[in-house]
């Protein structure tokens, strides 16, 4: 005898159309059951069904008709859920059924409430992969601060140059030795600006400025005053190669003295790069920065530098001679008047773009510095001798480069490399 179907629960069904679909589904299934001839055909393997059912029935035994019964029951369940999910997918104008459609079908059917926990566990399992990715990213972020080192605080050696200039210089053009060092960089950069790239790295330059500020102690104000009064002298001095040669000697000494570690030598190179684009303005800007740094408490230097190396904003000097903070993501590499910035990850890429001539010159300087560092031991006298040797050698090669500029870059480069090989 056929039983009357229960009244459908229209309150929880999304649309009357879905209800009609389900009624049609069950009518079709009833017809299919009535017309079934072969009961040995099963949609689900018997062994798997027995294994799943056995996990719940304890010590109970199953009658001989149970596997086929469970197989048919499972088939009805899967098809009904698929039809409901298909209605959900169509309501979103999609031709593909997603797991969200399954969840929507289960949520709209009261008798399927026991499946809500299954859905929750299913989603948790699929969310584990993105979590591991986030963990990896966090590890990378944690590694960045540890790679940044505190600045190398080495006292700048202040001793007279050993090279005699070809043309004598009047005392009025030579500032006092105690205030002489900061002006070497803009002068040096003006002469060699044609060999340098236009995109210096500010972070390492700031590192150098801080080193200079510490070395000079409380003379920040004097530096600032002296800079404002003697700019014309710098311009006059730069026009003469001989004067430039004599002025470069302290610069090279600064390079050798201030940078026993390769990273600091890079900061010196970038320092010159900054001045190349706007020597006069950058000079004042740099000295202002040094002045500010010298006034800051010494305990705050390291955190500031660490923040600079990893902060989301960037520092650069513009034509107004002020330091401007640029939010991360702002593209200023195309600006002609602005010294471009390169973040830590892109430093190597930027350095590769510099011209061959510049690389060769500063590579020589680095080699000299490294040789001095290697020879340096616990004896101070040996260190000073090595520094002096490196200074003389580099100075000679640098002068030769200027005099033989017309001979070609490659030839000079070969000469430099031969001396250090």
């Amino acid at each position, binding site marked *: 005898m056929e*039983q009357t*179907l*229960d009244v459908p629960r229209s309150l929880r069904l999304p649309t009357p159309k879905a209800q009609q679909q389900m009624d049609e*589904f*069950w009518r079709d299934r*009833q017809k299919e*059951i*009535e017309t*079934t001839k072969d*009961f040995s055909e099963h*949609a*689900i*393997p018997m062994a798997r*069904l027995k*294994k*799943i059912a056995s*996990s*719940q*029935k*304890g010590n*109970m*035994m*199953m*009658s*001989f*008709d*149970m596997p*086929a*019964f*469970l197989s*048919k*029951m*499972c088939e*009805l*369940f*899967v*098809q*009904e*859920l*698929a*039809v409901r*999910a*298909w209605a959900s*997918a169509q309501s979103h104008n999609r*031709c*593909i*059924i*997603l*797991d969200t459609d*399954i*969840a929507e079908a*289960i949520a709209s059917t*009261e*008798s399927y409430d*026991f*499946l809500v926990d*299954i*859905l929750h566990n*299913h989603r948790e399992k*699929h969310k584990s992969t993105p979590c591991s990715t986030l963990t990896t990213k966090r590890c990378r972020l944690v590694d960045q601060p540890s790679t940044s080192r505190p600045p190398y605080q080495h006292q700048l050696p202040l001793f007279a140059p050993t090279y005699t200039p070809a043309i004598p210089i009047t005392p009025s053009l030579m500032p006092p030795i105690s205030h002489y060092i900061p002006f070497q960089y803009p002068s040096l950069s003006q002469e060699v600006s044609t060999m340098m790239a236009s995109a210096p790295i500010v972070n390492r330059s700031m590192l150098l400025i801080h080193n200079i500020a510490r070395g000079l102690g409380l003379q920040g104000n004097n530096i600032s005053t002296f800079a404002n009064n003697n700019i014309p002298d710098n311009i006059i001095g730069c026009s003469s190669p001989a004067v430039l040669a004599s002025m470069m000697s302290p610069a090279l000494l600064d390079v050798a003295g201030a940078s026993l570690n390769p990273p600091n030598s890079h900061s010196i190179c970038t320092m010159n790069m900054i001045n190349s684009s706007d020597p006069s303005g950058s000079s004042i800007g740099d000295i202002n920065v040094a002045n500010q740094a010298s006034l800051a408490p010494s305990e705050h230097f390291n955190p500031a530098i660490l923040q600079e190396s990893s902060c989301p904003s960037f520092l650069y000097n513009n034509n107004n001679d002020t330091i401007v903070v640029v939010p991360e993501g702002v593209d200023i590499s195309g600006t002609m008047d602005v010294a471009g910035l390169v973040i830590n990850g892109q430093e190597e890429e930027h350095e590769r773009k510099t011209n061959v001539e510049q690389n060769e010159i500063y590579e020589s300087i680095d080699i000299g510095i490294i040789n001095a560092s290697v020879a340096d031991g616990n004896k101070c006298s040996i260190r000073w001798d090595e520094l002096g040797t490196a200074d003389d050698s580099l100075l000679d090669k640098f002068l030769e480069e200027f005099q033989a500029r017309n001979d070609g870059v490659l030839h000079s480069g070969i000469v430099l490399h031969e001396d250090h090989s």
Partner: protein
Amino acid sequence: MTNGQDNLLPIANVGRIMKDGLPPQAKISKRAKETIQECATEFISFVTGEASERCRRERRKTVNGDDVCHAMRSLGLDHYADAMHRYLQRYREGEELAASLNSSSSAAAAAAAAGSRGGGAIQIDVRAELSIFRSGNNQGRPNN
């Protein structure tokens, strides 16, 4: 609770059953198949657990289709109970028809048929069948 793929229904079978019930243009994402795979496994465990609990309360040792039908009805799965009840009737009709055909032949053929059908000893199989038949009659009376 199910752990790993060994305790789940085969996903290929689940996918095929889904396609048979849907229009040709319907596509099913992989995660949808996995979701229904887990839901179907839980469905069988849940209903079978209810049915075995009822048998335990009635001091019976064997779970049969009637118990599962009754469990589904108590769980609010009336459509399933109705459809599976009819399926069970059709299934038993088929079995009885086969048995009646075999009974007309020799005793050896009957023994072979009984062995292939039940997979156990003749006596046990006959008794199980008789008990099912009686319980079926008992279940039929309240419904009528």
